[in-house]
């Protein structure tokens, strides 16, 4: 499988999913006009990746300064899919990174954490 990657834009994050390292990274802001269609290729890639992940360790680093409500839905889908993979035997660690002073980003992380059962979900503050 190839690396899945997208450059950062004003309204979309940098995405770098590396199947060899089992490391998925998302960083930036997310408020595209149509989140479902923007993230569709990423979700397709993920589907294929998780179908073959077995019991590997997967590390997911997410650092989102801001995202809109339709992106929130996509990220919930992403985390649900990862949670399912964890239930099926993969070891999935999600690192939710937020800037110390960004209350909203922390709350968003907590709300994802509350809705997931099988992944290790870490809330990691970044010092200013």
């Amino acid at each position, binding site marked *: 499988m190839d690396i899945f990657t997208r450059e950062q834009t004003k309204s979309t994050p940098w995405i770098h999913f590396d199947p060899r390292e089992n490391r998925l990274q998302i960083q930036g802001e997310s408020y595209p*006009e149509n989140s*479902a*269609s923007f993230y569709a290729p990423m979700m397709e890639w993920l589907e294929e990746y998780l179908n073959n992940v077995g019991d590997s360790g997967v590390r997911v680093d997410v650092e989102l300064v801001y995202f*809109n*409500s*339709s992106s*929130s839905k996509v990220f*919930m889908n992403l985390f649900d899919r990862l949670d399912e993979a964890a239930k099926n035997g993969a070891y999935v660690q999600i690192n939710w990174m937020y800037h110390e002073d*960004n209350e909203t980003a922390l709350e968003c992380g907590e709300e994802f954490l509350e809705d997931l059962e099988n992944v290790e979900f870490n809330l990691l503050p970044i010092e200013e």
Partner: protein
Amino acid sequence: MQNEIRSFYHQLQNQGIIFSFSGPISQSLLEGIGQTLKQKMSLEETSTNVIRKVFSIFVELMQNIINYSAQRVTSQEADHEISYGVLIVGKEEDQFYIISGNYIQEDQEAALQEKLAKIKSMDKEELKQYYKQQRRLQADEASKGAGLGFIEMARKATQPIEYDIARMENGYSFFVVKAVI
């Protein structure tokens, strides 16, 4: 004409209006104005948490116009449509407010009315649960967003969301919504 523009401009300023736009709205316009809005607030030393809330509601309202305004120019490429609406950002007694307005189809009125009334009746904890519940639902076919925008706004706002829907002619209604931060 020149006099009218001058008095229009002063009228906006006297009412504490920071920004007002009426006309065709696109994602690139949203990105540009959003950046300027953040810059302006940060130059005035607005707290970063307030800036983030204002920006978040600004994005939801602009995208609401982009996705749902009934007055639009369609394009072959799905993501390159232009929609019409009006959006105002202002400051009143130390609080920011954002108002948006756009046409909707008359037959969308009831569902919108119901959704907004429901949101208005909820406290912050109920809004959180409703948000999480809606986030897990499959997006309905007609919705380009996630149906979460107004809930998100109500959660970020410091006062209940105000709205008005007025019946117009030819099967259209005009929808106005206001959030205070």
